[in-house]
């Protein structure tokens, strides 16, 4: 008997079932297709204002601009104000690549990070008001390495992409990728990297970015 068959047989023996019971199969199939919602905290209903508060509470910084075209100038300002080098790496997201980067002095790199980049820029799939969390999906548009390797991660979030809770992100995922499907990687990011492993003292910039800057776009 294979390990798989033996383990499943052991589970069924312990549960006193055969696995062929129709009501059990129906209960499982129903839950997997309907994904019933559980308890959803009311806090998420606070929308963009709650998103801003919670993101800052999680030690991210945040600025707001009215239009996407202002992103290059805002990124240049952020890097200058924090005495950071004027270099940015970004993926193939057309919403970023089409921007007037030439109007700034920023040096732009494209594609995934090999670990030598100081600053990365991404567009979030969504923002979550409940916890000030960013949802980022993998792919050529926004490579996952940009979320973790650069020292400073800057993320564009559109106001209309800010939703109340994780459940709403999952609904959107199902709409985009299909039921039962998911992108290779979905990162929920809440503030910059940290560790409290030395005497329970909180320190920022453990292995991931030391800074997380959110640029909220939209009037």
């Amino acid at each position: 008997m294979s390990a798989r068959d033996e383990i499943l047989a052991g589970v069924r023996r312990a549960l006193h079932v055969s696995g062929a019971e129709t009501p059990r199969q129906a209960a499982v199939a129903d839950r997997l297709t309907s994904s019933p919602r559980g308890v959803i905290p009311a806090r998420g209903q606070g929308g963009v204002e709650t998103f801003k508060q919670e993101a800052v509470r999680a030690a991210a910084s945040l600025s707001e601009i009215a239009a996407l075209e202002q992103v290059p100038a805002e990124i240049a300002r952020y890097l200058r104000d924090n005495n950071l080098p004027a270099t940015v790496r970004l993926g193939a997201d057309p919403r970023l690549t089409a921007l007037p980067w030439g109007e700034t002095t920023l040096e732009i790199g494209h594609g995934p990070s090999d670990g030598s980049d100081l600053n990365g820029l991404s567009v979030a799939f969504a923002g979550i008001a409940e916890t000030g969390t960013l949802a980022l999906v993998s792919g050529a548009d926004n490579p996952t390495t940009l979320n973790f390797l650069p020292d400073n991660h800057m993320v564009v979030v559109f106001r209309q992409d800010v939703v109340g809770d994780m459940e709403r992100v999952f609904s959107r995922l199902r709409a985009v990728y299909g039921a039962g499907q998911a992108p290779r990687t979905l990162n929920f990011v809440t503030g910059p990297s940290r560790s409290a492993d030395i005497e329970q003292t909180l320190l920022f910039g453990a292995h991931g970015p030391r800074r997380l800057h959110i640029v909220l776009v939209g009037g």
Partner: protein
Amino acid sequence: MTVHVTTPRFKLNVHEALGDPRLQRAMSHAGNLVPRRASAAERLPEFEALRDSARDIKNHTLAHLDLYLEAYEKRVTEAGGHVHWARDAEEARQIFLKLCAERGAKRVTKGKSMISEEIGLNEALEAQGIEAIETDLGEYIIQLRHEAPSHIIAPAIHVTRDDVEADFRKFHTHLPADRDLTKPETLLAEAREILRQKFLSADIGVTGANFLIAETGTSIIVTNEGNGDLTQILPKVHVVVASLEKIVPTLDDAAQLLRVLARSATGQDMSVYTTLSTGPRRPQDPDGPQEYHVILLDNGRSSMLGTEFADMLRCIRCGACMNHCPVYQAVGGHAYGWVYPGPMGAVLTPSLIGVKEGGQLPNASTFCGRCESVCPMRIPLPKMMRHWREREFERHLEPAAVRYGLGIWAFFARRPALYRFAANLGMRAMALVGRKKGRFAWAPLASGWTQARDLPAPQGATFQAQWRARSGALR
């Protein structure tokens, strides 16, 4: 089972732990998480309702575990991943070593994983000449020290800052000897620098899983450092090692559990990185692993289903029970002698390694009930510790003195009139002998108590007599 089980010498471990000033100094920080959890729970009005929801989701899943496991495997395979089933630790190790051998892997980076501790993965890799590198800061520190984790989410909680500085000076010999390592920040920066090179040059990355999602074939890891992510996106191969009770039906179900996990563990609303991984990289993806494997471990869990210990399979490994446990706070995690310490370890360890080896742990409880009161999954930990004590008694595993003592007590307890008479007599005798000082520095059969403090002499009537008088007065 890992090689170094010291659980059977638990009593000795405890004595050593209590007499170790360095450990006691390190453990003085261990209570920091108690107020953080409390304020996080207080900030969310729905927290108690979420605990109920989380408990119900896991109960539903465990009752249908066979079907959810099959559904999960199907989705992983559809996404291009592979599921390897392992009956026990040895089988899991062999699967992993085979994956390494087939790919000629020389260096393996690891995200924090208690299952990899449970199967003794590091030792197995080292025996084959494969370098295994722990990347969680706490895990990295204890790997340098050749120690095991002493806490399931804060593995180096027993180590002081001074210890870390000494270890880094000892092992990072390529760095200038006169560098300043007096601040925790500089220690962190040094570990970051060293581990960054390891991340970029690893052949295989291993992570655990907080949850496995049947709906999509997804594994979820939760970290604050980002080490788990660098472990799984940079090497060519990502291997997840997870036990089968990590299954959750849907993404929405996982969202319920995530809301109680971080709050109970560290008092955060969300951990910094919650990462959902499904299969290997897609054709258009510029990064991510080319292979995705899941080693699904049973190792005794399936035989806990349907028993009085099945509730333990709801555990999501947040560590709240140990953070709130007076026994854990006093002795630290190593005294428990195996992978899982604290109240959850006291229940799980006898289930996984046997009551003969682990049966002493459930005795290390004051039954104060704080563990159950903070457990996000509402696991009745004290009740299950009592079940283990009963089993230990049934199997005659405790010392003869305990058995005889309990036998004598039971003789009186079953005869209430005699019990009252004897208690009254004993109390009067003690009150008479101790009337001068009002306390005893020594008493027969009570040296365990009097070695450390005086035993107060009884004053007034017995508890039962006082209770009778009191309830009479109230009536």
